[in-house]
């Protein structure tokens, strides 16, 4: 490695990225440094964006939270639990306190792992990703961002500047399955959002396909079947069908953390639970 560049602000970061397209961005470093420490990766240079002020802020624009890509998870948990309960719940399950103090949503998007825990809540909430470069800024729906494991639409000269996430219109839940209560890569995860004004459900699944995936059929089914006005208890037939459709949206693999069959089953169970919790919350509200 021959270079270490420190970006002072977003404009500077875009200039540096344009000048050094082969440099690896580093924010919290919790993925990048593991690769470097073990010699798994040998980037030409590092481009530090951890102090870019625009990336470290969040703001509210009407019913949207504009979350800078470099806001660490600890702050998401502490400051955004009310506006973005789904993302905050997921953030709280990530790594340990030390990891959450550094790691960022921008890094989770950059790594583009199907197991990235911040990702299903972004898909479920129909967030969009703001990408910045010297060419300008573009917005991509989170649902269209991922191309495969470790691959996204992010171009060589681009930086994730922010994520635009609708303020929760109703209950949002997230559940993740792993062998321990902390510090685990998800075997499977599910995010569910309820949007009562639009009578719309969001549902996305992690760790069960080459990318985080939207369970579109489950969303459409639940949106139509839920008793939005009467708020009656969820019939078991609805949760069962929802769970089945969520599992059907996945394309899991066998690996050291679980078999494909186990993952499909886990997704069904997590989908049933998250919908049930979200619905209970809606009924009480």
């Amino acid at each position, binding site marked *: *490695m*021959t*270079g*270490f560049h*420190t970006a002072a602000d977003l404009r500077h970061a875009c200039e540096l990225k344009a000048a050094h397209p082969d440099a690896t961005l*580093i924010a*919290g*470093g*919790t993925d*990048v*440094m*593991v690769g*470097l*420490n*073990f010699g798994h990766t*040998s*980037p030409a*240079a*590092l481009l*530090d964006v*951890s102090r870019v002020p625009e990336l470290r802020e969040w703001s509210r624009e009407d019913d949207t939270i504009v979350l800078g890509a470099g806001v660490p998870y600890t702050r998401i948990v502490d400051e955004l639990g009310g506006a973005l309960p789904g993302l905050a719940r997921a953030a709280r399950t990530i*790594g*340990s*306190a*030390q*990891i959450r*103090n*550094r790691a960022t949503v921008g890094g989770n998007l950059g790594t583009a792992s199907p197991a990235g825990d911040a990702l299903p809540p972004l898909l479920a909430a129909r967030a969009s990703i703001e990408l910045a470069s010297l060419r300008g800024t573009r917005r991509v729906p989170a649902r269209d961002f991922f191309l495969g494991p470790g691959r996204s639409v992010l171009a060589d000269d681009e930086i994730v500047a922010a994520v635009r996430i609708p303020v929760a219109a109703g209950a949002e839940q997230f559940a993740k399955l792993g062998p321990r*209560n*902390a*510090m685990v890569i998800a075997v499977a995860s599910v995010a569910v959002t309820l949007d009562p004004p639009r009578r719309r459900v969001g549902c996305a699944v992690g760790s069960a396909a080459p990318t985080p995936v939207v369970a579109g059929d489950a969303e459409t089914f639940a949106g139509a079947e839920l008793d939005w006005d009467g708020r009656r208890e969820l019939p078991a037939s609805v949760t069962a069908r929802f769970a089945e459709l969520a599992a059907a949206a996945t394309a899991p693999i066998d690996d050291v953390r679980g078999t494909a069959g186990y993952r499909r089953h886990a997704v069904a169970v997590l989908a049933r639970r998250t919908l049930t919790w979200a619905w209970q919350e809606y009924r009480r509200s």
Partner: protein
Amino acid sequence: MRVDLEVNGVRRSLDGVREGESLLHLLRERVGLPGSKNACEQGECGSCTVYLDETAVCACLVAAGQAQDSRVVTVEGLADGAELHPVQRAFVEAGAVQCGFCTPGLVVTVHDLLARTSDPGEAEIREALAGNLCRCTGYEKIFDAVRLAAGEAR
């Protein structure tokens, strides 16, 4: 490259730092502070926990260059001269140290927890310590030390 930072209150300028080097390596090998331990280099064990600008982080996951102009406090910076910090004393008194490899990281983590919450509940303690592994004690004595230090702080 060159990195300037403050470590335990002392300004340092370090030359010849590798671009991909970790803050942990810089602290141990260049500054000569071996308190922060190098056990996993992948954020799993917490034995390298230090303060970076008042935030508890795994030093193995911070690139040395990211610490330019920052203030770092390591476990060596917690005691007041020969006087141990109350968290350190609590670890000794509770018998929370066996081989001691995990201790520096745990001391910093507990220091951080008690700086934020003077009276942490059981669940809070467990959540705060989830990123620190200990192969020896079975954790119970460590939880005793946290409660002891918290009681003393109150």
